[in-house]
């Protein structure tokens, strides 16, 4: 283990497709993950992310398409001959074996000498901070410890790629947060490719170098966490990641460095996204970019409205504002300022042009 294998573990998926009896789980996806990257597949349940992972692991055979691992097609290589290892959602630790034997399982299959097995298992357990737990049975471990054993069991084989299928899904929120940070640090330490499947956007945004947002067997967008969050390419991505205000508009024409969009009777300037689109489109603006001002405030991109509801979120308040155009939008407001906007208060919602993103249909 070490960072010397920086370029090892490149995965390339080419027109990968998997059909089950009645559904198309993976509908021709193309992905290129360079070696050493922390790459996440993010999407709601049933979007095909787990099937994609299982195809790469070899538990399923693709209907068509290619899976290149460091340039070689492994699509039809059985799982026990692929240089990838998996951390399963429920860990799948062998209940009849103790921690040492679980971690040593792969090395024994590879027929490594006894001394080497003991040494490598020891190092792997050290890496996940479980030295001294060798003789425990998996049933005597907490969820977080089982998760670490699963990690050690996969990492001890020094795979080119580590596949992780919602590995934190079964843990409670606080432990999950702690392990997110640990996992990311671990990935940087061992330097191998992590392919991480999750439906938890926060998890994906926190840990990943890049994210592929998936929906209904397609990849909707690939990019860094900043890109997919700040510059969603499709309505689905905008809607799935974080809270978004999505509104139907008509794009009229160019306006300075952006375009003119008509939201009901109100004309707004939008300066981000597909500003060269014309006709029917959608715009998206994040709640944290919506600024509330007193009713009648002057300037461009002000839409009159009324505060409908205030929701306490802990670190901030979420205000639901009913706009004069008929749309309902959400705005995030720091504590303290929200007392200005009680239910029923008329306001002007300022939608800054730079924050309005046009999404073509």
């Amino acid at each position: 283990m070490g960072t010397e294998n920086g370029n090892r573990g490149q995965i390339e998926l080419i027109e990968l497709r998997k059909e089950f009896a009645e559904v198309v789980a993976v509908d021709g996806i193309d992905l290129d993950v360079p070696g050493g990257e922390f790459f996440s597949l993010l999407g709601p349940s049933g979007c095909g992310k787990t099937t994609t992972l299982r195809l790469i692991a070899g538990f399923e055979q693709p209907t068509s398409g290619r899976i290149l691992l460091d340039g070689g097609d492994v699509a039809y290589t059985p799982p026990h001959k692929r240089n990838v290892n998996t951390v399963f959602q429920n860990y799948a630790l062998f209940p009849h074996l103790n921690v040492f034997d679980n971690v040593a399982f792969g090395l024994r299959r590879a027929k490594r000498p006894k001394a080497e097995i003991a040494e490598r298992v020891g190092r792997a357990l050290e890496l996940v901070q479980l030295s001294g737990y060798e003789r425990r049975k998996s049933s005597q471990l907490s969820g977080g410890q089982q998760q670490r054993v699963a990690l050690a069991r996969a990492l001890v084989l020094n795979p080119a790629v580590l596949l992780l299928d919602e590995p934190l899904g079964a843990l409670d929120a606080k432990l999950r947060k702690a392990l997110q940070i640990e996992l990311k640090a671990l990935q940087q330490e061992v330097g191998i490719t992590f392919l991480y499947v999750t439906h938890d956007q926060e998890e994906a945004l926190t840990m990943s170098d890049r994210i592929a947002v998936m929906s209904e067997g397609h990849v909707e967008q690939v990019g860094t966490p900043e890109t997919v969050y700040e510059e969603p390419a499709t309505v689905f991505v905008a809607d799935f990641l974080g809270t978004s205000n999505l509104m139907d508009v008509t794009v009229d024409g160019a306006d300075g460095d952006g375009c003119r969009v008509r939201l009901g009777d109100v004309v707004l300037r939008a300066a981000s996204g597909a500003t060269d689109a014309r006709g029917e489109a959608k715009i998206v603006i994040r709640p944290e970019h919506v600024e509330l001002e007193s009713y009648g405030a002057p300037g461009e991109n002000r839409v009159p409205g009324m505060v409908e509801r205030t929701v306490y979120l802990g670190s901030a308040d979420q205000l639901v504002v009913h706009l004069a155009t008929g749309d309902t939008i959400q705005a995030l407001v720091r504590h303290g300022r929200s007392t200005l906007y009680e239910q029923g208060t008329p306001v002007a919602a300022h939608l800054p042009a730079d924050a309005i993103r046009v999404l073509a249909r």
Partner: protein
Amino acid sequence: MSVAAERPAASISTGERVRGWLRNPWGRPRFLVLVTWTYVVWSIVPVLIAVQFSFNATRSRTVWQGFSGRWYWGDPVDSVWHDPTLRHAALQSLKLGGADVLVATPIGVLLAIGLARWRGWGSRPANFLMLFPLVTPEIVMGVSLLLVFTHVFTFIHTGTIAQILGHVTFSISYVVVIVRGRLFSIGRQYEEAAADLGASPTVALTRVLLPLLTPAIVASAAVVFAISLDDFVISQWLSSGGGTDTVPIVIYGATRAAPLPSTNAIATIMMVLTLLSLALAFLAWRAFTREERRASVATEFGGFTV
């Protein structure tokens, strides 16, 4: 002021009180408990009486005249130990039971794995057909097996081999049902994990799947042994008489002639063996699944959560 004083006790009739006692929603389900115990007593008393008379000091099977072990070993002619018919029958029963376990268990385990992992055309009918021997009347199976052995596979003669084949035929279903249940409860994840860690399908089977199936295998072996000892119909149809009569056949024959307490004695021995094999299976299951139960994974023993 006590709570009892507040209750209008005087106004409750005896009938209401009994009904209230039976229907108390916070208490035990007394009516169901009553039914259960009635059944347990009803079913166990005849067995206990039969066992008691196997220890009778005289030849009577109805009048108790003191405790003795003569029908087991004491009587030089008629005890189980000294009567060649009984001794032979016991050996034949044990032989069939042992052979049945040795043949039916491995085949049943392989069939269960195959049926549980086989998806696609034909797997559903095959899974369904596996239950057939469980619901087919035994007499029908006995008759048809005899026809098969006398007309089709004529190289198989009635007697021990035919009896073993008969027992195996219906025992396999029990093994399949028990092992398949366990397979479904452990899922595919361990096999996938083994493959992921470099184990070929064969190694995954021997190193992971079989150890995890051990409780179900032990349990089904015990059940097979027990039902083989119990079997009368198949053993009778495929017996070639004399030396191949099993304990149930001999008991049946004896009770129609002049039964002695030695019949009770051999029945008792068979019952104890059956109970022992089932108890052994239960304990083995508990021992093998202890870790899983600690991890609060529900485990099933032939349909019972233990």
